[in-house]
């Protein structure tokens, strides 16, 4: 299934694509780089001016001091403005590119076929559009320009110091290589550990989640100590990893902090002797110290930036691979409209397999007449859900075709097809919006009376009005949690509201209690009148909703007929429902 799981892009292609995104923001980018250059020049000029002020005005009184000070203050003000602009401009590029990548990914998510979601767990899909984007944002919004600025600062300082005293410059730069090495090493070592800290925290979440969700079992069996022990182990895992991280920090950070002292000592020792010997002025001595101290951060930053660049390229490589390597469900080249009126559904010699695996459906023929309700029965894993999923084109058959009203489903524009096929999935998904909006999700302009009628048919009326705010009650994690049975009923009503001509129900009442199920079966039949319905079920009580039942075994239809006839026939259908049938 390589088409839903493409391999990550290499470094160069990724870099080219990032560059293309960056080019959209080139004005800001060039502006940011120009500011960096200005910042570097001013930051080098200020220490030089201080040196001049000390030598010519303070020590020797050759010139008045105030012009120097005025220029320094003026340059500092200018630098503040330049620095603001550099930070703000580059940060905006990062933020924009992050938002753009996220937008592209989300757009793509909405188009991706089911196969993609079978393959990739929700957490992975989610983090690729959230956490994975941060390295990209920081690299583009900070790292890239900061890196260029670091190089400029190092060059400028090297030029100035060499001009003043080349040999002293060589001696006093003694701390700079170890700072660079230490910073690089720290960035390389701390990154995997902080990832491990995140993983350990994930373990804690998992243990907490399990204990909280399963609390009734835990308390009933008196296993509190057990889960406490387990949780304690996970918490200990976080602690030891955090302490390991602190260990790495303690081996590197103080070094970064105190290594510059080597350079200061070198300036004192060698520079001091030069001053004593009269080869260096006291102002130049200060210039050496100031410029060397000023280099510490740019050097450290280089360490961070190389690391950040690697992470950014890696995660951008994964994102681009998804954006370019995964194909959405193709729209028909020559679209055809569905005919008006009731639709028949024909599965013609349909075979289906999930990407490269064994066939789930074999050469299957099934016709559902316009307005007919057909129940698909069969044990778990017989292929019921796979069959149903072919109708809204969640998947396409690997052989044969599915026709609605005589038209191949693949020739109908996807939006039109899906507007004509209403679906209730096995585990219904409701959205975190008010109940009313959930009900009208498939047809927003639906008349409220129609919605209420659908609610009556689907049994939403028995609990909807008594929710805290009735049909306006917010559903979901931030609002009211409905039970599985209630969610199924809302999903059922939602499907009825659409007015779709074909309705596909995947075990729609499986979580509804037995009493309610009986009532609903009686009410649903009239509500479904006139529509072509395919309903999969494992309950005999739901089969009674259908005009005809077919039994699916190992991807083939082995029996078909009116439910009552099938009961008497004593074939696979009767075996499937066993005692339930015998009891009758």
């Amino acid at each position, binding site marked *: 299934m390589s088409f839903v799981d493409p391999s990550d892009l290499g470094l160069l292609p990724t870099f080219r694509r990032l560059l293309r995104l960056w080019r959209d923001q080139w004005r800001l980018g060039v502006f940011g780089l120009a500011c960096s250059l200005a910042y570097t020049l001013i930051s080098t000029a200020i220490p030089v001016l201080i040196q001049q002020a000390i030598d010519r005005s303070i020590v020797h009184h050759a010139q008045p001091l105030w012009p120097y000070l005025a220029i320094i203050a003026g340059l500092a003000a200018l*630098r503040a403005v330049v620095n603001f602009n550099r*930070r703000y401009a580059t940060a905006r590029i990062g933020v924009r590119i992050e938002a753009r990548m996220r937008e592209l990914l989300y757009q793509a998510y909405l188009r991706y076929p089911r196969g993609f979601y079978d393959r990739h767990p929700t957490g992975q899909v989610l983090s690729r559009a959230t956490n994975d984007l941060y390295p990209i944002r920081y690299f583009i919004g900070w790292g890239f320009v900061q890196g260029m600025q670091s190089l400029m600062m190092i060059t400028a300082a090297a030029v100035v110091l060499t001009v003043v005293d080349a040999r002293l410059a060589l001696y006093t730069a003694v701390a700079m290589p170890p700072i660079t090495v230490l910073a690089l090493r720290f960035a390389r070592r701390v990154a995997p550990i902080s990832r491990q800290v995140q993983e350990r925290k994930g373990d804690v979440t998992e243990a907490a989640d399990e204990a909280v969700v399963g609390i009734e079992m835990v308390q009933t069996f008196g296993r509190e100590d057990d889960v406490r022990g387990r949780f304690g182990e996970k*918490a200990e895992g976080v*602690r030891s990893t955090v302490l390991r991280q602190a260990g790495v920090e303690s081996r590197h950070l103080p070094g970064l902090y105190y290594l510059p002292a080597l350079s200061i000592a070198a300036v004192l020792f060698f520079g001091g002797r030069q001053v004593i010997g009269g080869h260096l002025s006291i102002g130049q001595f200060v210039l050496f110290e100031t410029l060397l101290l000023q280099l510490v951060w740019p050097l450290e930053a280089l360490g961070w930036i190389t690391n950040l660049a690697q992470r950014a390229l890696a995660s951008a490589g994964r994102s681009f691979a998804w954006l370019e390597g995964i194909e959405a469900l193709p729209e028909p080249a020559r679209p055809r409209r569905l005919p008006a009126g009731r639709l028949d559904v024909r599965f013609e010699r349909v075979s289906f397999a999930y990407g490269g695996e064994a066939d789930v459906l074999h050469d299957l023929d099934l016709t559902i007449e316009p307005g007919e309700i057909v129940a698909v029965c069969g044990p778990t894993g017989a292929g019921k859900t796979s069959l149903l999923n072919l109708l809204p084109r969640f998947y396409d058959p690997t052989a044969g075709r599915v026709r609605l009203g005589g038209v191949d489903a693949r020739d109908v524009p996807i939006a039109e097809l899906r507007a004509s096929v209403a679906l209730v999935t096995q585990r219904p998904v409701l959205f975190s919006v008010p109940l009313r909006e959930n009900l009208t999700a498939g047809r927003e302009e639906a008349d409220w009376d129609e919605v209420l009628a659908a609610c009556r048919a689907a049994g939403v009326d028995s609990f909807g009005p008594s929710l805290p705010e009735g049909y306006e009650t917010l559903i979901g994690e931030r609002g009211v949690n409905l039970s599985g049975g209630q969610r199924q009923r809302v999903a059922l009503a939602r499907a009825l509201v659409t007015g779709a001509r074909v309705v596909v129900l995947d075990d729609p009442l499986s979580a509804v209690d037995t009493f309610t199920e009986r009532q609903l079966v009686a009410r649903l039949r009239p509500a479904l009148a006139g529509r072509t319905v395919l309903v999969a079920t494992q309950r005999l009580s739901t089969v009674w909703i259908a005009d005809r039942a077919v039994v699916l075994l190992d991807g083939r239809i082995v029996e078909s007929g009116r439910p009552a006839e099938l009961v008497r026939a004593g074939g696979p259908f009767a075996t499937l429902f066993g005692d*339930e049938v015998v009891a009758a």
Partner: protein
Amino acid sequence: MRRLGRYLEGRKLTAALMVLVGAGNAAAQTGGWLLVRNAIDKGITADNEHHLTIVVAIYLGVAAAGWFLQAMLIRGLATIGQAIVIGLRRDLFDHLTGLSLRYFSQQKAGWIIARLTSDVDAVSDVLSQGMPTLVSNVMLLPAAVTALLIADWRLGIVSLAVLPPALALSRWFQRVSHAANVEQRNRIAAVTAQIAESVAGMAVVQAFNRERRFQAEFDALNEANRAQSTYVQKIFSVFFPSIEFLGVLAMVAVLYVGSHLYAQDTLTIGTLITAIYLLQLVFQPLQELSDVYGQLQSAGAAMVKIASILDEEPEIRDRPGAKPLPRLSGDLDIDSVVFAYGKDPVLHGVSFRVPPGGCFALVGESGHGKSTLARLIGRHYDPDEGAVRVDHHDLRDVQLRSYRRQLGVVLQDPFLFSGTIASNIRFAKPDATDEEVQAAAAAVGVDRVAARLSGGLEHEVREGGAGLSSGERQLISIARALLADPRILVLDEATSNIDRPTEVLIERALDRLLAGRTSIIIAHRLSTVRRAEKILVVEHGRIVQRGAERDLLSEDGVFRRLAHTLEGGDETEFAAAG
């Protein structure tokens, strides 16, 4: 904060030591610059190379000591911080698992889990990353100011003049950036929630042609997040260059005043130079402390929420002098029990008595009090009035553990823990041997379910039992109850779809499990109702009918109506067909 102090117990010495180490570190940093002054004045300008060499050597020694002290500080504070965090996390978890089900039914699981994870993490971040920065900078700032004043009090006062605006700027930054960061987190959370919901519900989004609507909603959220990120960046872009600018201003002032003092010969050149560098040590803590401030705020907010859980009193706990229960014969007496979750009672004076080994079925529509009754029997709640007694012991007078060890519960949709099928069965009796586990599995037919899975009984169950049908999960939980060998059994029958072969297995398993035990079954199927000696029909929190199936069917009452819906539907249809 007082709560956190508790976990310092036994580590006070280390904590005190860390304060000393922090002070030493600050002294090393500022003291180094005083040595530089000495080297300039007594060595360089005095043309004394020998003195210069000695001072440089001392300077390097001080730097090495500072290096060592800072490494100690990072390690030491992390150790103390993590000791506090693990204590807090464990106590919170222990406390939580002791709270009654009422608490868990009132709070959303997600909310509780966030307290155990992201809130404790927020405290942890401050303690392990924020603390070293906080401790070193809180000490460095006064140390640098003191060193400036020691170097030359006049220059010290001049440079202090810039401090108030710098402090004001920092305050402004802390306030504004904190508010902006909080808002930023809300907005990215909204974006994340939108993506998560779309991905989880993609089938529905696509089936109902909702792509455009979702895209529009997403675009609005994504744009709001981008705007807020930009705003946050703007605040940062204003603050740091401004502080840098104030630093230069202070230096200009020092140079100006210093030049006059130097001209009057009341200031050495070494002091003037040193003052310039000490100034940087004053401004650097301001920037770093501003970064930590946000972390401190979030940790404070997190602690408030954590405390709200720790302050929750456990509802069910052993009374002083509670006795352990001897092995029960299984007499279960529900005596005039009244119970309310909030104001309105859900049980209004329910009474019944199950003799040892008896099997009673609770029948009725959902939401009428059956599950509440089951939970009172499991002592997840205590009745508001009346009593639940086993073998004539009021449950409130006995040790909870000793009772629950003799109680078995099978829930409607049992939760499985991560681990293997075998470890889930063993959950009820951790010291059970492999043979016992296998025997229990074989007795209820779990071995047959396991046979279709890789690894058999050692098959890894995914979180919550995903990948197994609810029937299969219930079967595993029956094996679990069987292994525990309880005297009293509460069983909430599965309502959701169970394929026929599994259902047959469950029925056989129940034969095995119920034999010789007192049992209460919340029944959803007629076949199960028939198993019971006595049927209790629950309606609106009362028992409205009781008796054997045959007797109840002969009465014109709730049970007949229920039985009719349960079974009648089929009969009429089949009658029509026949």
